[in-house]
């Protein structure tokens, strides 16, 4: 059965990047981005950092011994 997310991604990548679906595995991996979307949804509103924005390089220096 066609995966709606995979279909959506196929159109999106073709439209925005002019890259066609190269193989079956690409479609399957694209469909697995559903778990990334779920991960982002789960994080919404859960992280509050007082010092945002902050550069990563500055954080490396700030957290060294």
């Amino acid at each position, binding site marked *: 059965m066609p995966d709606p997310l995979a279909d959506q991604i196929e159109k999106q990548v073709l439209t925005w990047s002019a890259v066609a679906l190269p193989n079956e595995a690409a479609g399957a991996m694209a469909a697995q981005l559903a778990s990334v979307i779920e991960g982002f949804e789960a994080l919404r509103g859960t992280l509050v*950092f007082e010092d945002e924005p902050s550069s990563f390089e500055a*954080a490396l220096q700030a957290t060294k011994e």
Partner: protein
Amino acid sequence: MQRTATAKPLHLSLVEAAEAIRKGELTSVALTEASIAAFKTKDAPVNSLISLDAEAALEAAEGLDRLRNAGRLLGPLHGVPLAHKDMYYRAGKTCTAGSKIRANFVPTYTSTAVARLEAAGAVTVASLNMAEFAQNPTGHNAHFGDCHNPWGLDYCPGGSSSGSGAAVAARFTYGALGSDTGGSIRLPAAMCGVSGIKPTQTRVSRYGAMPLSFSADNVGPLARTARDCARLLGAIAGHDPSDPTSAREPVPDYEKALDGKIKGLRVGVPTTYFFDDADSEIVAAIHNAAAVLREAGAEVVDVALPHMAAVSTYGSIVSRSEAGAIHGQWMRERAGDYAVHLSARIYGGLAIPAAYYVEALSRRGPILKAFAAEVFSKVDVFIAPGLRKAVPTLRETDIDRSGPSAIDAFNAVSSNTRPINYLGLPSISVPCGFDRNGLPIGLMIQGRPFAEARVLKVADAYQRLTDWHDRTPPTVA
């Protein structure tokens, strides 16, 4: 274990080999010839090699022996033959990145990491097999042939620095550069039973190293022991004007820190994430390693690691998004020249919305700060398994031949290494046992940013009390 310069010089550690050259017990030519012969006569079943540079290596070795005989040593690697993942540029030498697309690419300049190793006296003997464009954790390569694990030829050697792990394990070379964007040094180290360190993000220059991810790529060494890694890292670490992203942090004497003394040092065992659904034999091996560290005087405590859901989610998209950008043009023009699993992986990266990518990057600093404040106030280092499961076979993770059914096994390989790249922490993998199939188990040790000396110290202390790193694969005569 201290070995002497015997009839099997390639069984010495890198530091022992360097010492033997310094004392005049062995020559660079003898060791370089031994390494070349090993690659020529023993590599076929392992397939760790992409190209040998025998003539230039022997010429360099002869020059280094003349210098040594004149009483001059270039540095702590004087005369030691090394081989590197085939993604480090050397002026005038073909650098394939394990790919068909760059099979004939000849760079006009030399990477800073290789240049610094050679300035310290190392001889570059060979370029090693790797995952195509450094993008799989297993060791498959559709263009140069899969690399095989010397401990069991049907099994993954780990990737993407597959040839680096396999060649060091098989005693073809004393050490090798790898690169680590999601585990590509630590996974082959763990699966091949050698030591490999991913330094703090920005610790080592990436100039002249094939890019995969601007934010998460790291240059680092694999070798037999933590002490070997300390010597190699000491040679390559430090700011490089050619790589403005490299840190200006001073480089300590990493070997000086290796005194075996870890009394009172606090070692954390995570209660979250890293042992989720892990094989019992893996859990037991890590707890046994913790017991060894406790016997050596360390204080071993449980530690809950915060924000792991965010680290895992955000970390999963950064390198994929960046790889999509780096490979976009080739995906439009030459998608058929990639292996199936690689074009599939890059394709997904093109689908990730920019807002997700920017969110993941913008949260990286704050999450590191929160993580470090919580964790490193309680422990000095934390340990974890490199893989949660026994080393998989090449077949069961082969997306190109088996299709999408192999994707889950393929992705699972890097679940414990990838989060550390998002956090940017220094992380070493050292061998700590064997799984039910006789394949190595890797112990990962992580510390604060720029705490490579401490991470190496703990690893070295562990290796003083164990002999896993001295075991040789059955394929090694």
